[in-house]
């Protein structure tokens, strides 16, 4: 069965410093992996998606993530944080055993950005 673990429930950075949000996954298949962002009282927005093509995936708003099979990791990074990046971030793996495409969510990481 697939699962995903977000290693930090809360990450705090200063504006202009790098962001690292950590995610490990478990899957018996070659997984599809996603990062979604959720701003307060808003829906989820797709940041980026990995589907067994290039291991370094570039997303929107300067975010990128690297798929490392040997480490079963899919960490999200951004070189320079902006105040508008403050939000909840979810690492997600797709469940291939479902008829549709069920998503398995991590518990989320709250990113705080201070000026």
């Amino acid at each position, binding site marked *: 069965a697939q699962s995903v673990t977000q290693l930090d429930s809360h990450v705090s950075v200063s504006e202009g410093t790098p962001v690292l949000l950590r995610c490990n996954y478990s899957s018996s*298949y070659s997984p599809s992996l996603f990062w979604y962002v959720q701003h307060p*009282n808003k829906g989820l927005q797709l940041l980026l998606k990995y589907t067994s093509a290039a291991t370094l995936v570039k997303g929107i708003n300067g975010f990128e993530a690297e798929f490392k099979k040997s480490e079963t990791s899919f960490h999200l990074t951004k070189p320079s944080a902006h105040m508008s990046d403050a939000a909840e971030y*979810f690492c997600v793996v797709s469940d291939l055993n479902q*008829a*549709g495409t069920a998503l398995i969510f991590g*518990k989320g990481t709250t990113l705080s950005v201070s000026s």
Partner: protein
Amino acid sequence: DAMVIQNPRYQVTQFGKPVTLSCSQTLNHNVMYWYQQKSSQAPKLLFHYYDKDFNNEADTPDNFQSRRPNTSFCFLDIRSPGLGDAAMYLCATSRGSSGRGTDTQYFGPGTRLTVL
């Protein structure tokens, strides 16, 4: 712009009074999903439609029902809301024609339900 629309954005209902939440999409996607998200938690899948085929998650309470009258619309009916049903309800869609597991889900802005 193609998108997933949810109405209303905020809904207040009384304990035990039926309520219906609405979702529409202009993406012409085959699959539509309903998620429940409680405060500070990850979204939890309630059910999904693959075209007209309804798929209920095993632990979704009977109090929650759904209808999909056509490709564009999907409704979430809560027959007798309890205080524990207060949450954000998210609708999502996906194409459904990609290889299994590679489908991307696109989310609406959500409806925040308050139960008094």
